[in-house]
């Protein structure tokens, strides 16, 4: 189970070596044994999952074909709507909210036979980098329970790394799939902006959010991505990426002839030395396989954090306006509408959510819009241009550490918001440019996991998946 991948599992199903039912039972056994300590899950769907697994097994004996994810146990971050089920985004204001419809990704995963085990813990409303901002519970890193799993998709990463699901899905706005994957020793992919529909994802920052898979292997990440992606009439920013066979079946010969850029600005002072050494070992590994490397510059990197912490809270302040306890959510008892809004939001949101709403409202407010938000949008364009220029200079992908440090201890950064924000400095610029990126565990690391990140051109997930598999498999 520790090394169970979708491919191995389906081979086992076809050969009748394993059954979907036994697979789901074994994940729930692990959950029962360990999730009391780890705390990855908020809700579990055991009865339904077992029923669905039975149905898969019956289908196999009756000779019906397998869906691409038949019997695969999936954990879903609790900001993704599953019809008829509680969806809370780990926030008090949605603690009893029952979703009225399925997110598009859920429809797609289910259509291929995936079995949802339950919903995973996260930082409230996706705001945080450690899952410590969850209103409901703490999630611990399965590799070291005194440390955070990362965030905001900490529960999803912990469920895969803790062998409590085969794959999971999360959302990534500034690194929230890649960073927890890196901290927990899993693979995490953030697709090109627009590749996966955001319909049914509780919105955080609409110009940055993407749903992505967290898996054990790069191959599995590619498979789950391929199923989730596609233009959706319910998400006007989504688009059908055109991929050939290369997405799932990389041409390793071509991949090994690629050139990868090393951005000087990402290897500056402040990177923990063992993280830097680990990424260098990846570079050495790929070099031996023929991949070329060259230094590049992304000159506006140092402004990315400021730009992100202006644009993201601004969009958050708008998106969270709908969480007012009127049409859905937790409602207080005030007499007038205005008082009710104040009460519902004051009571319903945690401190980080409030902080970001206030910051976002401020940067959009009259008199300050141009100095902050207007300026940030222009610098964002420059950050994107840095990437475009780098790719045009003759590279196929960019390599970096996923995070500057390994997983920090629970409570270590929670009292200083700015310190917490710094853990996303390598992941944030990618969302701003709308590019695809993947975090992959470095091989042979003893102790805490270290992830490296590959960033690709827009719509070039095939390149980063291919390079990832070249590293992982060959």
């Amino acid at each position: 189970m520790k090394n169970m991948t979708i491919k191995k599992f389906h081979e086992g199903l076809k050969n009748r070596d394993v059954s979907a039912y036994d697979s789901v039972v074994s994940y729930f056994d692990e959950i029962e044994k360990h999730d009391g300590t780890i705390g990855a899950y908020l809700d579990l769907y055991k009865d339904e999952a077992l029923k669905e697994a039975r149905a898969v097994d019956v289908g196999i004996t009756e000779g019906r074909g397998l869906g691409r994810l038949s019997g695969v146990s999936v954990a879903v971050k609790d900001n993704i709507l599953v019809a008829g089920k509680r969806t809370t985004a780990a926030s008090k204001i949605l603690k009893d909210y029952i979703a009225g419809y399925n997110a598009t990704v859920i429809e797609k995963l289910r259509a291929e036979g995936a079995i949802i085990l339950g919903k995973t813990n996260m930082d409230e409303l996706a705001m945080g980098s450690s899952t410590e901002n969850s209103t409901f519970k703490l999630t611990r890193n399965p590799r070291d329970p005194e440390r955070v799993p990362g965030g905001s998709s900490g529960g999803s990463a912990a469920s895969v790394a803790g062998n409590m699901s085969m794959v999971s899905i999360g959302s990534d706005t500034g690194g929230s799939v890649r960073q927890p994957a890196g901290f927990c020793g899993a693979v995490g992919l953030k697709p090109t902006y627009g590749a996966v529909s955001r319909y049914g994802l509780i919105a955080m920052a609409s110009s940055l959010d993407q749903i992505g898979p967290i898996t054990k292997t790069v191959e599995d990440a590619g498979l789950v991505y391929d199923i989730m992606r596609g233009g959706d009439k319910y998400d006007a920013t989504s688009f059908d990426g055109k991929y050939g066979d290369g997405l799932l079946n990389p041409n390793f010969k071509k991949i090994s002839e690629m050139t990868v850029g090393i951005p000087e600005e990402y290897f500056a002072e402040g990177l923990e030395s063992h993280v830097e050494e680990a990424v260098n070992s990846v570079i050495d590994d790929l070099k031996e396989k023929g991949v070329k490397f060259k230094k590049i510059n992304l000159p506006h990197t140092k402004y990315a954090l400021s730009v992100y912490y202006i644009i993201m809270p601004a969009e958050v302040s708008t998106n969270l306006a709908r969480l007012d306890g009127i049409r859905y959510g937790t409602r207080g008892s005030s007499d007038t509408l205005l008082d009710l809004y104040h009460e519902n939001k004051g009571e319903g949101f945690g401190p980080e959510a409030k902080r970001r709403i206030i910051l976002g409202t401020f940067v959009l407010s009259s008199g300050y819009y141009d100095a902050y938000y207007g300026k940030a949008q222009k610098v964002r364009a420059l950050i994107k241009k840095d990437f475009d220029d780098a790719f045009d200079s003759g590279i196929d992908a960019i390599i970096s550490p996923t995070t500057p440090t390994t997983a920090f201890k629970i409570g270590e950064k929670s009292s200083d918001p700015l310190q917490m924000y710094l853990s996303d400095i390598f992941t944030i610029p990618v969302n701003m440019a709308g590019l695809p990126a993947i975090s992959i565990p470095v091989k042979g690391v003893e102790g805490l996991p270290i992830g490296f990140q590959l960033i690709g051109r827009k719509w070039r997930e095939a390149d980063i998946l291919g390079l990832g598999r070249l590293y992982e498999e060959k």
Partner: protein
Amino acid sequence: MASGGNLDHRRSRSSNSNLYHPTFSRAFSFLYARIVIMQIDVKHISKLARIELSDEEISEYSVELDKILDYFKELQEVNTEDVLPMFGGTDLVNVFRDDAEVEDFESDTLKDAFPKQKDSYLKVPKIFS
């Protein structure tokens, strides 16, 4: 531009478990060395955002957000003349659907989530006291 070969991307330096990217350490010293001039009127903003904050929250957020705002000052040094702002994350424009009546939603499932309802109408408190 080097390609492959002997890249000097390795630097020997002492292991530093504190996070001090050159820009960030500049910002932090900036922070402690000067009086913060910019102040967010958190109380006013909380009214705009319709969030009730306690006095404690107001003063706590004032301090934290002023620190963050101070950090943003570095953006002023970026030359953005003639730069078109980036609106949103996509290059798509004008995504339309046919101007035809479409009924593919069961509104009942949404009404089930109403915290207070009467005869399937959403109940809200009065607007004026």
